[in-house]
């Protein structure tokens, strides 16, 4: 840790812990400070005499580690953390950039409002630099997103209202009407998806038409971490593999991955278009892929 790192850590932890009469768990501080326990203990040793040089004990900052908690008995003048440094302002700008550029209007407005509020809290020499960067960091939405659908779906998610859609289902290769009760929206590789209360995902670009209804639906069960779906996508949750479904192993130049079968047209399309990819097993899925590839080859070779 450099002196600047230690300075920042001290100027954060003293006011942070001083507000908590029972002290702060070290785990909480280690998270915010990106430090190990040993580094934190070392820092507290080094700052044992901070205050007025050659001053009496009551003129020094009193900060100590007791058990698994850090206590600040005397913060002296260190009662507030410093404004945001340039790196902190850049970090916040960068974190909020995809949200500000989001095609979801409510999310975009919310993120823009927070960005303005936070930039105003930057240190004075940081503010001009960060302002200069605000418009220089952009995250570009996918071209195939349908903004009118996204706006309607964002509203449906927030208001828990069902949507009647006309949807092209790639796995069945069919266009049909259905009711969608959207739990959440997420982006994956530049395309937007809706997660429904049936725990199925729908690609927004494949929604031909959408109509918001007045039919409402209950929120997702408490404790269900929707972010896990994004982490697993497009391979689904392993515990959700249906009866009779077998894992399919696909090898790409980067390595092997397992996918809960059966392999739909969408994933077969992925294997066809991904140079160097192949289905390892099971044999039936490999045979189907090969048969389709021959048919497509014959069409283009004539």
């Amino acid at each position: 840790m450099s002196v600047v790192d230690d300075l920042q850590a001290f100027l954060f932890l003293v006011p942070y812990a001083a507000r908590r009469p029972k002290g702060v768990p070290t785990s909480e501080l280690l998270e915010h400070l990106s430090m190990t326990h040993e580094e934190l203990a070392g820092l507290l040793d080094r700052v044992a005499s901070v205050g007025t040089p050659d001053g009496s004990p009551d003129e020094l900052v009193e900060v100590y580690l007791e058990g698994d908690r850090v206590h600040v008995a005397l913060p002296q003048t260190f009662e507030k953390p410093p404004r945001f440094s340039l790196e902190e302002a850049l970090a916040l700008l960068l974190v909020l950039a995809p949200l500000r550029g989001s095609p979801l209007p409510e999310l975009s407005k919310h993120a823009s409002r927070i960005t303005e509020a936070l930039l105003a809290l930057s240190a004075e020499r940081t503010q001009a630099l960060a302002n200069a960067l605000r418009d220089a960091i952009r995250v570009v939405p996918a071209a195939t997103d349908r903004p009118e659908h996204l706006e309607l779906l964002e509203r449906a998610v927030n208001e828990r209202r069902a949507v009647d859609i006309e949807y092209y289902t790639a796995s069945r290769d069919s266009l049909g009407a259905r009711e969608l009760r959207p739990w959440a929206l997420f982006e994956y590789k530049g395309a937007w998806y809706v997660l429904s209360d049936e725990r199925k995902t729908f690609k927004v670009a494949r929604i031909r038409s959408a109509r918001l209804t007045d039919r409402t639906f209950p929120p997702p069960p408490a404790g269900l971490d929707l972010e896990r779906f994004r982490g697993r996508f497009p391979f689904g949750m392993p515990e959700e593999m249906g009866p009779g479904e077998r894992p399919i192993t696909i090898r790409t130049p980067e390595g092997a991955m397992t996918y809960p079968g059966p392999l739909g047209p969408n994933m077969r399309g992925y294997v066809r278009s991904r140079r160097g990819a192949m289905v390892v097993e099971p044999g039936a899925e490999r045979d189907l892929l090969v048969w389709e590839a021959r048919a497509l080859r014959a069409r283009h070779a004539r």
Partner: protein
Amino acid sequence: MDRLERLLDLVHVLSTSPEPVSLAELREVFADYGEGSDEAVRRKFERDKAELASIGIVLRYVANDEDLEPGYVVDQEASYLPEIRLSAEDRALLARAGRAALAGEGFPYPRALRLALGKLGVHAGSRDGGTAPPEDASAGVILRHPAAEIGAQEGTLLSTLLDAIARRKRLAIEYVARDGSISEREVDGYGVFARDGGWHLVGHDHARGAVRVLRLSGIRRATANTKRPAERDYVVPEGIDPRSYARPMAHRLAVHDEIEARIWVHPDLAFVHEPSWGRPDDQSVFTIRTTNVEALVDHVLRLGDRAELLAPPDARAAVVRALDALLAAHGADLAESAEEAPR
């Protein structure tokens, strides 16, 4: 005296003194400032002052007060965060956005982000992958961050670019083009944009005398000009928006000269392609201009029997070659008939 302790003591002394403190007075209080020539001590003090300024603590020299001796004070207003009024929704969004950014290795400022969120009283989750309880796990948008989808090396490069753009310092870049050729570039950075998980730099390329877009994944090395750090090397022209340089469609990436391509897509699926390709004719055939026919080849391969690349002939041949490679990888005989489905 430990340097960390000296800097913190300096802040404390200047904060508690009822009057500005001159450097001469500081020399009496701090043994570290007591030794050496006046010039050496002043340089040491200025270094400390700059170090503190880099983290937001502003020391000001006050010399225009009739009743006070000139000297230094800590500008409390400029240095410390005022009370922050963020709503529960604001905190929840910041927590989820922070967690999304820290999900991978590529986010360039992980430490600064955790500290900034800590100042806001927001928890983004611990470093070991475990997370603090989500403040709003049922929020309707599952967030991702494109910086979390790049590697640590690209993340470091991204921070170099952002820092240089903020300070308007010229970048020296070693760049590997898509064709594998390596070149040295001098670029005035205007901005960065992310699309489909890939980051790009937009800037004025001095050798080419024009604005260029460079892929972050093609940048092998980037260093900002270190001469005259406080001065700007360039001015960003009015109206530059990195988004306008983001070619949003893969088939418009500049790989070759523009050609015309024709693609039949099954009528049920044609609407999916209209935002990118425009309207098809009454036979469900799209006619488009492309500078990256390979992207169309990939797309037709994905669509399978729901599409056919009708023209140009070279692109049809590319589809055949890709399928030949796929069949060979699966140990299939190319000569075998495609008439009978396996199931």
